[in-house]
């Protein structure tokens, strides 16, 4: 048997996290280095996952399978395909950055902080590699516990409200998904995803199952109108928590749509696609406008995340309308590719934006836009990074932010001019709220003494932002390695979407 790489990636961070916690706060420096070591080891271990990945097939690779709960015919079944591989890479990458970013900033119970992130990394990789619905659900829910603690322990002043809201919102969505999964298990006799894909379901069943899934995934994405937990959670979470939340946890919603909703309930997805498309467009326009008026930088980026995730859900579901108006499938894969690229790119950009805010917050302990002004005068290097990421957030060509949005808009055009038109307003709105914020924070004259006393990035911060900048530019200039990985899987998914189960 081959080396169980996915199990290694899943459990190494969990075990490492427990060890880091056992090292304890009295030896904080050892705990930090150990945490970094584990995170780097996981990241290095994802490289063979990428290099060994066969980009010509949609089949699950690196698969591992053994009985787990025999009474429920649920297996410990892991595997990656073109959808999960990029997200696993993103997870491992972000965790390393988050640990470096929290290096000295976290003074309160540091070992538990790093442990929580490592454990969460393992669970998130588990979510992305689970090929068994019950296993997926276990990882999916277990992930809430470390995040709950991260926001609650290391968060801001209203952290307790925010974290309980976060937990209950996502828990509420998830339990409905659980009922749907159990229902399907009783029909199919297995929790294996491949079996569920093949399970015939009546239209009525599909509609109910779709709505149950929708409750879980729409909360996670989050989509309007169940997005209200996100601004609270983001604002109150520590910088690292916001980064992981934005970079990975939101992606779980999109991942869920691609992995569960579309292939398992294709007919219901078809019937209800206008609901999702409508909510996505509302997110793009309305939330874009909401972002414009925010006073708090983190809140602004949180709303911008919701607007950007609107593109993901749009890309996932616009395929049905493309088929309806053009009669062929070419555009469907395009839209799905756009959604995926948007997820990865948003993971990088939103993560970077939150890190930028974190850099400022660590210095002046405020996130109010009005408390800053003219930062570029005292922090030129930081200013350059912030402007770059802001441009990427606004979708400037050459950055990764452009690729995803462009692909989705292009695909939407095939469905309807108006979808594309409304979606494209993001180019204006996104530029408006991001750049206006940058203008007020970074440019202009030095606003006050606090800003005048700012010190520019230290080596650690520059390293983190620099790595992210390279990634954002690389993906923007040459996204082909990413799209190549995804293509066969998304092509297959487009097929699954379009084959009726009735």
């Amino acid at each position: 048997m081959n080396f169980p790489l996915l199990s290694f990636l899943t459990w190494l961070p969990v075990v490492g996290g427990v060890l880091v916690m056992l090292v304890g706060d009295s030896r904080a420096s050892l705990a930090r280095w150990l945490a970094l070591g584990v995170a780097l080891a996981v990241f290095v271990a994802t490289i063979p996952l990428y290099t060994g990945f066969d980009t010509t097939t949609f089949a699950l690779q690196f698969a591992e399978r053994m009985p787990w709960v025999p009474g429920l015919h649920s297996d410990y079944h892991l595997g990656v395909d073109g959808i999960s591989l990029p997200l696993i890479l993103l997870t491992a990458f972000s965790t390393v950055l988050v640990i470096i970013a929290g290096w000295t900033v976290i003074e309160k119970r540091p070992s538990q902080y790093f442990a929580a992130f490592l454990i969460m990394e393992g669970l998130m990789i588990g979510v992305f590699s689970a090929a068994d619905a019950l296993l997926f659900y276990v990882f999916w829910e277990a992930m809430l516990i470390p995040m709950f603690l991260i926001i609650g322990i290391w968060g801001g002043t209203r952290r307790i409200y925010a974290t309980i809201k976060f937990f209950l919102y996502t828990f509420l969505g998830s339990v409905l998904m659980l009922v749907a999964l159990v229902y399907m298990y009783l029909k199919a006799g297995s929790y294996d995803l491949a079996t569920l894909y093949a399970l015939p379901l009546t239209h009525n069943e599909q509609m109910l199952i779709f709505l149950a899934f929708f409750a879980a995934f729409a909360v996670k994405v989050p989509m309007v109108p169940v997005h209200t937990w996100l601004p609270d959670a983001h604002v109150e979470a520590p910088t690292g928590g916001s980064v992981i939340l934005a970079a990975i946890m939101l992606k779980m919603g999109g991942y869920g749509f691609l992995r569960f909703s579309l292939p398992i309930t294709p007919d219901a997805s078809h019937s209800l696609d206008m609901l999702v498309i409508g909510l996505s467009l509302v997110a793009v326009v309305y939330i874009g406008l909401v972002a414009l008026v925010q006073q708090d930088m983190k809140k602004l980026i949180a709303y911008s995340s919701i607007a950007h995730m609107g593109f993901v859900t749009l890309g996932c579901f616009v395929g049905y309308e493309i088929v309806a108006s053009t009669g062929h499938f070419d555009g469907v894969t395009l839209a799905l590719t756009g959604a995926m690229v948007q997820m990865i790119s948003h993971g990088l950009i939103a993560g970077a934006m939150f890190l930028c805010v974190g850099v400022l917050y660590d210095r002046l302990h405020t996130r109010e836009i009005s408390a800053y002004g003219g930062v570029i005068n005292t922090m030129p290097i930081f200013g350059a990074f912030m402007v770059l990421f802001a441009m990427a957030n606004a979708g400037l060509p050459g950055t990764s932010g452009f690729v995803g949005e462009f692909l989705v808009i292009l695909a939407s055009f095939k469905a309807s001019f108006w979808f594309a038109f409304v979606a494209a307003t993001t180019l204006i709105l996104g530029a408006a709220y991001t750049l206006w914020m940058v203008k007020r924070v970074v440019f202009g004259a030095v606003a006050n003494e606090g800003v005048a006393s700012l010190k520019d990035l230290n080596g650690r911060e520059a390293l983190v932002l620099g790595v992210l900048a390279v990634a954002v530019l690389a993906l923007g200039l040459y996204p082909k390695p990413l799209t190549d990985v995804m293509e066969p899987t998304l092509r297959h998914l487009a097929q699954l979407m379009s084959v009726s189960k009735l």
Partner: protein
Amino acid sequence: MNLTLANSLSLAAPEMLLLLATSVVLVVDLFLSDRQRHLTYLLSIASLAATAVLVAGLPEGRHVGFNGMFVVDGVARFIKLIACGTVAAVFLYSRDYLIQRGLFRGEYFVLALFATLGLFVMVSAGSLLTMYMGIEVLALSQYALVAFDRDSPVAAESAMKYFVLGAIASGALLYGISILYGVTGTFDLAALAERVNAGAGSNIGLLFGLAFVLAGIAFKFGAVPFHMWIPDVYHGAPTSVTMFLSAAPKLAYFALTLRVLAEGLGGAVGAWQDMLIVLSVLSIGVGNVVAVAQTNLKRMLAYSTISNVGFILLGLIAGTQFGYRAALFYTVTYVLMALGSFAMIILMSRKGFEADRIEDFRGLAQSNPWFAWMMLFLMVSTAGVPPFVGFFSKLYVIQAVLDVGLSWLAIVAVLFSVVGAFYYLRIVKVMFFEPAAGEITVTAGPALKFLLSLNALAVLVLGLFNSSLVETIARAMP
């Protein structure tokens, strides 16, 4: 098949040993001075261990003795073994608590052992009379246990409440039994099952009797609307007694419900299913919602018990073999979590400080991170979050009700478990997010600490690997 007297007696060997050993403990304790009291404690645990050995030695398969009055089958063996372990764990957990409060007296152990005997008899009841006898032995011991701290007015008050309400419930139960006897002419559960299948199931008199029996059982189990005594009794009794009440008897009441409903009245499933649905939905709803408003941890756990009873009933509602197994799985894991939760209160408490308010746990994560994590495991598991075992127990009962087409019931149950998550999380919040109000000193001994850690870790391990427990239960309930 009916056996000779000698064979019948051999089936009841564990009960007889337990009775004998309890009597010995009772007599020996009279001759001990306070300093030698630990001998009572050791003898009690030894009695349970010896009983467990005899239970393990009982023959495989289903055997009926004493002309159908006494049944030994897989469920009985399994539950008796678990009960021995549970009661022994309660003793271990309680030792320090009792010593610190001057309550380390023989009565506690003797009463708890008599309660265990009653529990054994209930679990093996083959007739309504044996069942009633078991219930009363258990109940009377429990009343006395609650009042056992005689200087505490709260304990006396709750014992009074418990006794009066319990007597009414026993009356209802007995009345129901008499109606069942009147309609079918038998106390024997197997004979009752035959009559019901032969057509007595639709007899209005039988349904009338069934309603009374069910009300009695629901009271003992603590299902809404017969739950009023639970919060007061849980709150008023010494924590070590509350721990006993919340754990071992649940196993017995589960077995009892299974015997009466599934074995005796299985033919009238349509009649009791609807009643159980009402009890279950009300329990899950009221238990979870009212628990949110509690500031006392013991009261909160009392309401949590009520909602958990509702979940156990969900498994029974299904009326399928899978459902019964799911309910047994739920009961066993619930007992594990309840033991751990009350043990945490005991761990935190010391003389003059009961640690039974939620705020007493403030800042535990800073002063004692290990036990804060253990409590987190227990709370999150009870809330039903994977990968802990509490998730799987909920999963199984939900699957059981979905399997019989009661999807709405499953949805109601999971929605209320979200409400439930809130108050369990509040404990986590208090421990992890809030600064300590004062110095938290843990005075508990190493044995308690070790057992508690084991208990909480079992909640995690059983969640990750629960197939062996599932298989054991499947073997017990073929």
